[in-house]
């Protein structure tokens, strides 16, 4: 790994590697290159629309991801660390899957892995959310650009009335304004880029959902997350909770259209609720 070259950094141009040499499985190729950062890369690998989403194997992803990581050059230490952390989670997941069920890792390790996975998933979803939000903002900017403001300003005959705008200004003020226009704002570097705290817990979210989902009734995901709507992490964690319940067969998920509302329906029994709770408790320890 020749990634530890913290000096020369073009922060915006992190790992724009040509990826055609990626030692990837037959179905996965990071051919778009120019991705930015580890989440970008991983999202690209998993969601690459050229492959059938459900046929992407973790092995292929891990291989392609590692191939990109190996190619990282001139990347700063923090970015490299981030890539490596995620790579290690991916490898852990892969190892875990290769082990037969009864030879499972010890419980602590297992739980740690689940937690890492949840955190990775949350962050991927958060990253994807902002990616899509950025596109929407861009569309708004594009349509705003079709409109021009009036800029003509005051008519000449009123100008004589207007006080001198440069009153009390000095040559030094002009100098100061020039330097301000030229100089990028001073930056203090906190240097904790790779540390993020996921406060939200999936377990807690499942508990909450078990309480709010009516028997036989349905709620939209929007309704379920209304009270936390401005915190993406919280929304994402609720997503994970819904998925967990779905996997266990306790809820049905339905979505009309691409960006349509997601409807969640409780299809289990009352006993299932208890089972779900117990199951989750075991899952989290």
């Amino acid at each position: 790994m020749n990634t530890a070259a913290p000096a020369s950094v073009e922060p915006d141009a992190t790992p724009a590697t040509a990826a055609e040499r990626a030692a990837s499985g037959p179905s996965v190729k990071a051919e778009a290159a120019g991705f930015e950062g580890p989440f970008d890369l991983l999202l690209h690998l998993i969601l690459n629309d050229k492959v059938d989403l459900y046929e992407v194997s973790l092995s292929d992803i891990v291989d392609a991801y590692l191939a990109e990581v190996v190619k990282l050059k001139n990347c700063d230490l923090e970015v490299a660390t981030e890539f490596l952390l995620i790579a290690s989670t991916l490898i852990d997941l892969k190892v875990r899957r290769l082990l037969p069920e009864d030879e499972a890792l010890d419980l602590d390790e297992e739980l740690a892995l689940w937690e890492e996975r949840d955190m990775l998933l949350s962050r991927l979803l958060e990253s994807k959310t902002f990616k899509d939000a950025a596109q929407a903002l861009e569309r708004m900017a594009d349509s705003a650009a079709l409109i021009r403001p009036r800029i003509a300003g005051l008519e000449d005959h009123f100008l004589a009335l207007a006080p001198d705008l440069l009153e009390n200004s000095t040559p030094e003020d002009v100098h100061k304004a020039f330097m301000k226009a030229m100089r990028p704002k001073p930056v203090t570097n906190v240097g904790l880029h790779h540390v993020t705290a996921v406060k939200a817990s999936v377990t807690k979210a499942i508990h909450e959902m078990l309480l709010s989902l009516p028997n036989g009734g349905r709620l939209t995901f929007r309704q379920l997350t209304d009270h936390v709507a401005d915190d993406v992490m919280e929304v994402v964690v609720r997503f994970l909770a819904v998925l967990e319940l779905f996997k266990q067969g306790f809820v049905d998920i339905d979505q009309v259209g691409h960006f349509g509302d997601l409807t969640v329906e409780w299809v289990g029994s009352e006993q299932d609720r208890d089972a779900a709770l117990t199951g989750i408790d075991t899952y989290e320890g």
Partner: protein
Amino acid sequence: MQETQPENGANLDTRVQVDAGRDIETAIIDLSDEKQLAHLSRGIEALVMISAEPVPDAVLAQALATDEVTIRTICVALSDSYEDQDRGFQLAYVAGGWRFQSHPEMADVISDYVIDGQNAKLSPAAMETLAIIAYKQPISRAQIGAIRGVNVDGVLRTLSQRGYVAEIGRDEGPGQAVLFGTTASFCERLGIADPSQLPPLGDFVPPAHVLEALEQTLRADVE
């Protein structure tokens, strides 16, 4: 006048602009005093016409010796009257104030006429960073970096040079990290009155099939 239900995604953006400033408290002003009403209407039209920047309610209220709610009410009524009369311009509430601007339907006519270097495209990286700041402000450099998973120094510099973001405070915790937020220029660029008019972030949470694909690929149990 709030009846404009967005028919589809395409029209949504225009609607946001046209309706900017509608989402505000208005008052039933004393319509019986027609003379006073006409005076205020004409005064608003004249003042906004001679201003090169959006004019805040408070400034109009002070200049015309009335209150802000009255100003807003009249501005909305004026804006509607231009729309009803199919004028080629609008009175819109953008970036914290009222301004005259060309009607979006006249985009073809004016785009041939005005060519300038405005609105150089932002890179996807800058756009994403801007979105994070817009929705999470006030936010520190480290928090933005954590969400993006990369160092954001360069992008932040670009955005603050363009005037779209600025330091809006300091974190109270140890380190007193600089906190960033969006500016009036940002709102102007997007044609909105303020950041609260951004579409809710919940709208962009990935659809179920994306979620499932991610979850499926990264699941931790045995295959």
